[in-house]
Structures are given as C-alpha cells and as structure tokens.
C-alpha cells in the first residue's frame, strides 16, 4: 500500500458496525511507551530523535506480524499530508505540527497506528468501530507485547511505564469512546452531562482531541487517571458510563420524535436538502448538517442513505481530505466548492447531479 492509496479508502472504524454504532462512532485505546536508553523527547538532541526513529523502525520491520504496516516518515511529509493524517485520526495534531525526526506506522485497514517521537517515543493506538473496549485493549496489548520483545521500555517498579509527562505514567493508557450526541445538544442537556462526567474524573473532548470544538456533535469521553488501576479497571471506568450516555441520548431522541416530530423531520430534511444541493459550503456547516442527517437516518426519517456513507463524509469533507481527493492544493473558497461537489456526488441517490426529489 502507498500513502496516496489511503485517501481513496475509508477507514475501517467508520464502517458503522459494532455494538451501539448508531451513537458510538468509535472506541480507541492508546498506550504511551518510552525506550529506556534515550531521554524523553523534549530532552533529545536531533541525533537522539533520529536514533529513536531508526531503532523503532528497524524493530518493527523485524516483526513478521507487523510487516505489512505502511511506515510514513512524518518529518518529510508536506503539510497537507500531515493534516490529512490528523483528519484521519492516525496521528495527533501535536505530532503533525512538531519538528524533527518522527514517523507513523499505519495498519492497512487503519485499525491501528504507531506514532514514533510524539510526546513519548512510542504512542500506539487502536481504533475500532462502535463500542468495543475489550477488543481494542486486546489488540493494542498484543502489539505492545510484540514490540516489547524487541526493545526495552522504561519501567519503574512503583510508577509503572514511565512517560514524559507524569499525567500519563503507570499504564500509559488512554481509553476514549467517541459518541454522536445531537439530541442531547438540541435539548441542551449536554453541558449537564459533561459536568457530571468531569466529577468522576473523565475528560470530554471534541472530535479532534484536546482543545477541539465539538464539531458535528461528536464527543470523546476518556479516562484521566492512568496510575493505580489496572488496564481492565480503566476500561471499565469509561465503559461503565457509556451505556448511561447512550440511554440519555436515546431518551432525548425519543422525546424529540414524540414531542416535535414535524420540527425534527423538517430540520433533518432541510439539512439533507442543503447538503445535496449547495454549491459552496464550509466545513463547519457541513459537519453541523451531517450531524442532523446522521440522526435522521438512525431515526428512519431519511431512507436510502447508509450510516457508513455519512461517517465517511464527516472525515472526507475535511480540508486536507478534499485536497488529497482532488489531487491539488485548494484555498478556502475553492475547497468550499469542491466540498459541495463532493457531497452532491456522494449524497444524491443517482450520483449524477439530478435532484433527489425526482424519484
């Protein structure tokens, strides 16, 4: 597989399969690890960074289980390609924007990626469609075991796996579940829910992690504590609250259907109409409207549209994706036009630009 093939395919975690996938978009588990024989990233010389990158690359290559990974040298990547990987959730924004030797190894189906020289030497993450905590942990745990056969990770009897920031020490594990909660937003209950989550030491972030806005009504719930609990306990800590959140979202949807069916149907249909017919459209508006359409499909208000298609559109209408897909650099206004065309091609029933109303 080549780098440019990525743009054409849809990530496995967008397939909309797996438990509760009408509301839970994805489950992610990431582990932070550091090689014992090098300083942490901030203290590295250029030479150290290069040596870490080479060591990890060589060790990964030695493992037959990981031989099909696409290994990408992030340091030499043009900025649009780095942005593309961020939009795709394969690397963090910090990884894209930092400098010096760094890389990412990507699984062909995009089930997992291994970032080299992010905040820690190695950040390994698995993403799965739907609510699938156990499977995500099992897979990333196995990858951790494989790599650990080849390198010595910094580990402390008392503090566990050592990380550059003490907030990640111990298991080095962050469990995140991404939820689509449009009805809780519409009924203005979302703030409430978040405050209660923060009280029990869970963090809430937007689609693109720390500091990102909750675009498209997507919210990531993750653990903050990483030390003093086993990996299974951390999975449970996040896993326990998710069914409650799903329950609240379903209740809010029921309420909207029951109390304001016409308003809701109107809102969903208008959103769909704009997305199908707009000639120029911003990323923000797209996310906002796609969110209504996604809920509309789940509630049976729109037919002939599949959840995986919409999931994909959330990602593939992002700025770098449009540029990769069109094969050229586009400024904001050109992107807005390209985005509108892309939406038309993917949303209209016949895909030929004839109005949807015709059937």
């Amino acid at each position, binding site marked *: 597989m080549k780098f440019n093939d990525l743009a054409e395919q849809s990530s496995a975690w967008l397939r909309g399969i797996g438990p509760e996938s009408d509301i839970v978009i994805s489950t992610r588990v990431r582990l932070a690890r550091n090689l014992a024989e090098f300083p942490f990233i901030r*203290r590295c010389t250029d030479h150290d960074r290069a040596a870490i990158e080479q060591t990890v690359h060589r060790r990964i290559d030695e493992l037959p289980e990981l031989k099909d990974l696409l290994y990408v040298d992030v340091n030499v990547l043009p900025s649009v390609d780095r942005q593309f990987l961020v939009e795709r959730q394969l690397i963090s924004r910090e990884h894209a924007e930092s400098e010096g030797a760094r890389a990412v190894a990507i699984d062909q189906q995009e089930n997992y990626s291994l970032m080299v020289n992010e905040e820690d030497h190695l950040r390994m993450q698995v993403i799965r469609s739907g609510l699938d905590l156990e499977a995500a942990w099992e897979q990333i745990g196995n990858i951790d075991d494989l790599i650990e056969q080849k390198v*010595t990770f910094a580990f402390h009897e008392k503090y566990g796996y050592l990380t550059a920031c003490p907030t990640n020490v111990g298991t080095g594990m962050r469990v995140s579940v991404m939820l689509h909660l449009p009805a809780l937003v519409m009924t203005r209950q979302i703030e409430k829910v978040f405050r209660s989550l923060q009280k029990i030491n869970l963090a809430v972030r937007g689609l693109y992690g720390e500091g990102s806005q909750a675009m498209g009504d997507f919210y990531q719930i993750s653990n903050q504590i990483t030390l003093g609990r086993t990996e299974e306990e951390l999975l449970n800590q996040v896993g326990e609250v998710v069914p409650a959140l799903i329950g609240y979202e379903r209740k809010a949807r029921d309420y909207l259907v029951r109390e304001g069916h016409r308003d809701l149907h109107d809102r969903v249909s208008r959103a769909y109409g704009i997305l199908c017919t707009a000639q120029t459209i911003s990323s923000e508006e797209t996310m906002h409207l796609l969110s209504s359409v996604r809920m509309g499909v789940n509630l049976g208000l729109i037919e002939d549209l599949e959840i995986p298609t919409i999931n994909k559109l959330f990602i593939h209408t992002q700025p770098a994706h449009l540029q990769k897909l069109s094969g050229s650099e586009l400024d904001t206004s050109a992107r807005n036009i390209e985005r509108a065309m892309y939406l038309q091609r993917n949303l209209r029933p016949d895909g030929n630009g004839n109005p949807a109303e015709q059937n």
Partner: protein
Amino acid sequence: MRCQMCERPATFHITELNDGEVNEVHLCEEHARGYLAQSEEETPVASSSSSLAGALAQQLELGQTAEELARLDQQSCPVCGITFYQFRNQGRLGCPHDYVAFDNELEPLISNIHGATQHKGKRPRHLPASGEQRTELIKLRREMKEAVEREDYERASQLRDEIRRLEDEPREDAPASETEGRE
C-alpha cells in the same frame, strides 16, 4: 407535563447524574435556561489536580518557602541533566531516571494527579532492572557529547567504546526463547 416552576408546559427534561444518582427536572424553556446558567456558575469542575500545572503550583505553594523552591529548582538529574526548574517550566520530564532523581517532589505530585502512587497494571515481560541499565546509556552519550565539546577526545573515545559495548549487549534478561510462547 407542566414546568416545575410555573404553569407553562415543560419542554426541557433535564436528567442529572450525580455519582450515579439520577435526578430528573422538568422545566419550561425560560426556567430551563436559568437553571442551566445557574449550575454553570458552580465551582469549576476541572479541579487543579486534573492538570499538571495546577497540581504542581498547588504542591509548591503548600510545601516550600522561596529559598527552598530556589534550591529545589537547581537540583538536576544526574543522567539527563534536566533541572527541576526546567521540568516545572515545561511540564515534561527529561528522562526515565527523573522519576528516581526527583522522587521526593514527584511522589506527592503523582499522588495528587492520580490519587495513587503504585502501578497496578501490566508489566514488561523482562525485568525492569535492565531498563535502569539501559538508562545509563543516556548519561554516557551526554558525557561523550560534553567530552567532544571540550575537545577531550581521549575520554570521548573511551565513552564511545563503552556506549557501543552497552548498545550491543544482548538483553540477558529477555525471554530465554521466543518460541517458548508467552506467560
């Protein structure tokens, strides 16, 4: 259903989660807005312990006088050379050995962040002792760089040999045979 505060129909049905306890409130739009605004003003939820900077500031304020803090800031890690001041400033540690070198300061900080100081989860399959040995390499490489900088090439070449020897050393504590399978 009527609003709990007035005669208008309740259009907002708010469910509160409090330590697993569920509490429902039914309000009209106007009262709901007031209700939500009021709870937003409650104590900030993100307690200082959830952020590193907050936890650090809190801890240093409590424990140290200005002089003690100045002295503490100058302490440095014998392996990577980072000072406590640099860690405080950047919020990132310099190398694995910092957890040993700054243990007195880090332990309360870690306890504040995580509510615990003892790792309970997964462990590497081989002995962590070898990790500490590998961490020696950080120090040797740094010493070599310093030797080169002061043009002490004899020392630098000694160090280089030592580094090579350590780098090539097989991990004696690695699983005896990888075909043996996992525990």
